[in-house]
């Protein structure tokens, strides 16, 4: 061990109680940072995942359809997305070519053409307004995982099969294999068979969506072989805006992102992140002040020893090193304890915050990078906090110390 390290360890060991208190302070600080950041990150990840579980990242529509929809319904409502309200669905011009252009945009991982419009579902004498969506099951599954959320049946849409939500099925008293009639605006209608029931975790969708084959929807909605929108999944959800711009540039169509549709959610997430960062900043500041104040006191208490060491030839750099190392050790050891504490808090929270079915409300995001980052911050803070005390120690005049014993 080097001279500086030997002395740093000794000084810390001698100041037993102060050292323990400071270590506890650093540990609590690091623990809070680890726990809080894991909690917020887990919460936000699951909020975004839940939201995007039943939404595409980008929706592409024809120009005027969007303008009219915004006039009719206002902008911020999630429900505004549901095409059922549009009276006469607008078609995307030359959609196979446009679909090809969208697919070539870097970052686009899946696309699904949609033929959507308003319809009525009729069973016996009960009738419900629904959103008829003609999709290709394999492609749509990659946008919204319907297959994964089926409660019964299959997501195939062959022949006159439809798949609908458990809410609608309950309203109309339907189960797999039952028949229902779909009627559209222009009086076109046909009889369909329930091929499956899904639960997308959103009441609105469960009560309104009826998924049919693209062909059947096009016929009922009088779209010929046209489609009304293209839904897109991208690889980096927080870069959806940039990709949407690119898509608009290439196709001349309107591309709306999940971020625009869920503006409230994003504002919420941002302010949550901001307050979490602020809390973490002040925790770090408190940790720094704790380390600094302990070392300042230690310099005063150890001024006699420091004076002796300087008299026998210890250099300014060595003297500073002894105190910088103490800060480093406090930061490192406190981090190790704090990581344990943070993990413990997170696990405790996970085991206590349970949904009614006993599963965790949301995952606490405990990754090793979080521990490394918190420890690195605390260690750097330890060193920085030690600078002022170290300089004080280095400036001590050995003659003074020796004179006054």
């Amino acid at each position, binding site marked *: *061990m*080097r*001279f500086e390290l*030997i002395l740093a360890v*000794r000084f810390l060991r*001698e100041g037993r109680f102060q050292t323990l208190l400071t270590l506890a302070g650093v540990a609590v600080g690091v623990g809070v940072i680890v726990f809080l950041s894991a909690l917020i990150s887990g919460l936000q990840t699951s909020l975004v995942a839940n939201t995007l579980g039943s939404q595409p990242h980008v929706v592409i529509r024809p120009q005027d359809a969007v303008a009219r929809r915004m006039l009719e319904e206002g902008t911020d409502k999630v429900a505004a997305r549901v095409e059922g309200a549009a009276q006469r669905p607008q078609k995307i011009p030359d959609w196979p070519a446009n679909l090809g252009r969208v697919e070539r945009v870097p970052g686009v991982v899946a696309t699904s053409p949609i033929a959507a419009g308003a319809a009525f579902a009729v069973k016996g004498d009960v009738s419900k307004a629904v959103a008829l969506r003609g999709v290709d099951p394999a492609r749509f599954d990659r946008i919204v995982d319907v297959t994964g959320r089926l409660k019964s049946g299959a997501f195939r849409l062959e022949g006159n099969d439809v798949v609908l939500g458990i809410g609608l099925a309950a309203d109309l008293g339907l189960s797999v294999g039952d028949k229902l009639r779909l009627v559209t605006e222009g009086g076109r209608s046909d009889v369909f068979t329930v091929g499956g029931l899904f639960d997308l975790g959103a009441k609105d969708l469960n009560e309104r969506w009826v998924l049919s084959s693209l062909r059947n929807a096009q016929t009922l909605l009088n779209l010929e072989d046209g489609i009304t929108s293209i839904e897109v999944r991208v690889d980096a959800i927080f870069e959806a805006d940039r990709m949407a711009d690119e898509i608009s540039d290439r196709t001349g169509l309107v591309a709306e992102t999940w971020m625009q549709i869920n503006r409230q959610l994003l504002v919420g997430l941002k302010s949550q992140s901001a307050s979490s960062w602020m809390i973490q900043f002040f925790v770090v500041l408190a940790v720094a002040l704790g380390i600094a104040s302990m070392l300042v006191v230690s310099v005063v208490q150890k001024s*006699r*020893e420091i*004076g*002796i*060491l*300087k*008299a*026998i*030839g*210890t*250099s*300014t750099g*060595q003297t500073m090193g002894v105190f910088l190392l103490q800060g480093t050790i406090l930061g490192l050891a406190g981090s190790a304890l704090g990581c344990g504490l943070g993990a413990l808090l997170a696990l405790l929270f996970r085991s206590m915050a349970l949904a009614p079915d006993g599963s965790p409300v949301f995952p606490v995001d405990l990754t090793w990078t979080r521990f490394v980052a918190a420890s690195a911050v605390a260690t750097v803070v330890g060193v920085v906090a030690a600078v002022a005390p170290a300089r004080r120690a280095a400036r001590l005049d*050995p*003659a003074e110390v*020796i*004179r006054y*014993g």
Partner: protein
Amino acid sequence: MAEEDGAILRLEGVRKSYGSRVVTEVLHGIDMSVNAGEFVALVGPSGSGKSTLLNLMGLLDRPSGGRIFLDGTDTSTLDDAGQTRFRGHKIGFVFQFHHLLPAFTSLENVMMPLLVQRGRPDDEMRQRARMLLVRVGLEDKIFARASDLSGGQQQRVAVARALAMQPPLVLADEPTGNLDSNSADQVFDLLREFNREYRGAFVIVTHDHRMASRCDRIVEIVDGLIRKVDTGS
């Protein structure tokens, strides 16, 4: 020139004043030299400036005027870091209040000057420190904490520490001032023996005339000036 006349330490017109608004001059121009291997007593009334002078000799402080040559080097040409390094290599200190590191063992205290210079402990320095402790009669206290030793034992550890680097000059400010006469004699005898064995020069501040008379030379300081120099025993 220092080598020519065999002086390890030479002071030329050394002055020292304290204070910035009210300036008090404590030393008014000291000229003296200490030869290699010489054993010098520094005596004088309280407040006459003995400790001040010793601190200047030991490079713990800088003079307000005059020059100090140590082992042939004009120390005023050294910066603070240079003086610190010089001090570590050339000078051993024994202070009145022993000034050991209380939480460290005797062995660690004696090793400390070597450790400071070399950066990390090695067997050679451990061996040398152990020999010195045996030499001062503390073989059974090698691993005792300094704070658990008696005053006389602590001062013997301090003597061993001062000699760890085998410096050409050892400065001792009333090294026996706080000891009973028995321990005081023991410490003084040790210093004298080391002086003969290692041929290092010693400057010792003392109020004890009997001890002063056992030195090679007595330098008396009164009111910041050298009053007279006696050639002792």
